[in-house]
């Protein structure tokens, strides 16, 4: 029985396993192979050692994506909280409004943002001002926040709306005021939502290239741009090495996040 069952389930899993090998494992192996070879295919560490030239770009990418993630959290948590605590029929409308921009392609939204913020753009024309926005770090951060905010709000909203409604009453009953209810009870209980939100904003922010290209106005380069440039110019090996380092960086940050989530859930389900 057991053998038959596992045979059946492996049949059922076969297409997925095939898919995963073809499009995830294999490309990953190619990236690794490219990262450690020269264009002639001989083993070399040169690609990896050349990465020291890109340290400042890595630094800038991390800086901007950390700031963007932090702003998303600052804006997203209260928003998610308010939505989760509103009436069920209102919740649907709020979530709909939040999702609405996501129906438009990310690239198009970024272009539109550029049209709005440009030196001769919509805002400056209407206001008759000459704010120089596009080409600053602020514009790139703004673009990241604008593009990825829903990814922060949705997991936190899901998490807060799942908290037992009695928790607010119990907290108040046991002596909490509005602030301590939030800090001592609700925030700890929504930690897993915060961590998924942070992950879902941080990862696309650190690897983005079009936001920095469009809203950065070509004045500075993020690591995503560097990778893109390497591949466009045919420098596959260096591009692969940078990609590899990026993946490792993201893996490490995911690992750290997961560590905190598990610790948090360890309290709930030991």
């Amino acid at each position, binding site marked *: 029985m057991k053998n038959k069952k596992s045979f059946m389930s492996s049949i059922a899993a076969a297409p997925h396993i095939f898919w995963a090998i073809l499009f995830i494992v294999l490309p990953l192996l190619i990236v690794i192979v490219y990262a450690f070879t020269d264009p002639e295919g001989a083993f070399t560490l040169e690609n990896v050692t050349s990465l020291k030239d890109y340290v400042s770009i890595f630094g800038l990418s991390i800086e901007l994506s950390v700031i963007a993630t932090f702003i998303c959290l600052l804006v997203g948590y209260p928003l998610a909280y308010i939505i989760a605590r509103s009436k069920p029929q209102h919740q649907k409308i709020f979530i709909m409004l939040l999702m609405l921009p996501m129906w438009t392609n990310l690239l198009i939204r970024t272009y539109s943002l550029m049209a709005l913020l440009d030196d001769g753009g919509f805002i400056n024309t209407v206001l008759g001002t000459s704010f120089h926005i596009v080409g600053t770090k602020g514009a790139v951060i703004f673009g990241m926040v604008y593009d990825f905010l829903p990814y922060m709000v949705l997991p936190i909203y899901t998490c807060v709306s799942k908290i037992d409604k009695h*928790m607010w009453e119990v907290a108040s*009953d046991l002596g909490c005021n509005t602030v301590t209810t939030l800090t001592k009870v609700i925030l700890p209980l929504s930690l897993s939502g915060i961590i998924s939100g942070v992950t879902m904003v941080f990862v696309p922010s650190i690897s983005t290239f079009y936001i920095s290209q469009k809203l950065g106005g070509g004045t500075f380069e993020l690591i995503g741009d560097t990778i893109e440039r390497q591949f466009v110019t045919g420098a596959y090996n260096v591009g692969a090495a940078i990609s590899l380092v990026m993946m490792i960086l993201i893996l490490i940050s995911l690992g750290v996040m997961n560590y905190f989530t598990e610790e948090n859930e360890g309290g709930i389900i*030991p």
Partner: protein
Amino acid sequence: MKDFNGNIVKPKVTYNDTKVIDLKHIHKQYDGEPVLKDINLYIRDKEFVTLLGPSGCGKTTTLRIIGGFETPDEGQVFFEGKEINDLPPNKRHINTVFQKYALFPHLNVYENIAFPLRLKKKPENEIREKVTEMLKMVALSGFENKGVSTLSGGQQQRVAIARALISHPRVLLLDEPLGALDLKLRKDMQVELKKIQQSVGITFIYVTHDQEEALSMSDTVVVMAEGEIQQIGTPTDIYNEPKNAFVADFIGESNIIDGVMLSDYSVRFAGHTFTCLDKGFDKNEQVDVVVRPEDVDVVEPERGMLTGQVSAVTFKGVHYEIIVDIKGFKWMIQSTDYVAPEQFIGLYIEPDAIHIMKKSKYSGMFGDYSSFSDELEQLSDVESAEEF
């Protein structure tokens, strides 16, 4: 209550006459539907009061108004003589044990109980001392570091009680705290709760739909129906002297028959004139007569004050439950002697087994066992189905 020798033990009165909570003319509506209509009720210091009634009677709303989770549309709530209508729950010396326990899932047992003291920034050694004392009281010593989700329902409930009692409130509110427990555990917890209440000397206000629970634990029972208080009294008063047909039916089993008061101490019902102990009614006043099933003696038909044909007999362990048809009205009688279905029997009723009540809007709604069957009872009474 009876002790092991079967002697009646008077419940020890622990409360004094200070009014801790005083509700005056409380009205409350939800979406235009009145849920509380002119509730007047005071609760004394160290008293164990139970709000008893079917679901939707307003008992939980009353409790939530006392706790500060709801504000009354009209009327005043007094706490030790001071109006507290607008005081939030965290400013009231009142704590609540919720039906769903509502323990903090991110904290272990120790931290859950310590929570109110941590908020007040008490020193660590004081917290440790008090939590240890509380854990001992609810018999959970050694559970300090357990996650709350690993505990059974009964254990979680006891953590919730310890957490609510640790800051020593003046009043503890309990909203059907044993509702989710199985019958055996519930009985144990009833005894334990009563013991805790007596040892800490705190006023308990307890909400339940389980009349047996109410009778066995309380100093005072408040019977509610349709947003109104039907009767306030000691458990014995409520059982022996129900004020109207609703109370008589809700508390235990009752045969409720239309009767006419002929004069003081004389009432006519079911075609027979009975001697009773009640007086003070108008001559020929229409009344409801309550006869408890266990107070009727089964005798030979010729010796009976009433005669009827047995329509159903159910064995209940201690006694038989007999449904008798007397002139189209079905009586329930509990007897230790077996009678056969279809048999004609006589009923003998002592004067002290008869209780007379004024007519009320509940007259004629209860007390006839025509449609009675155990299965029907279980199906219709979803709330108490878990008891069976």
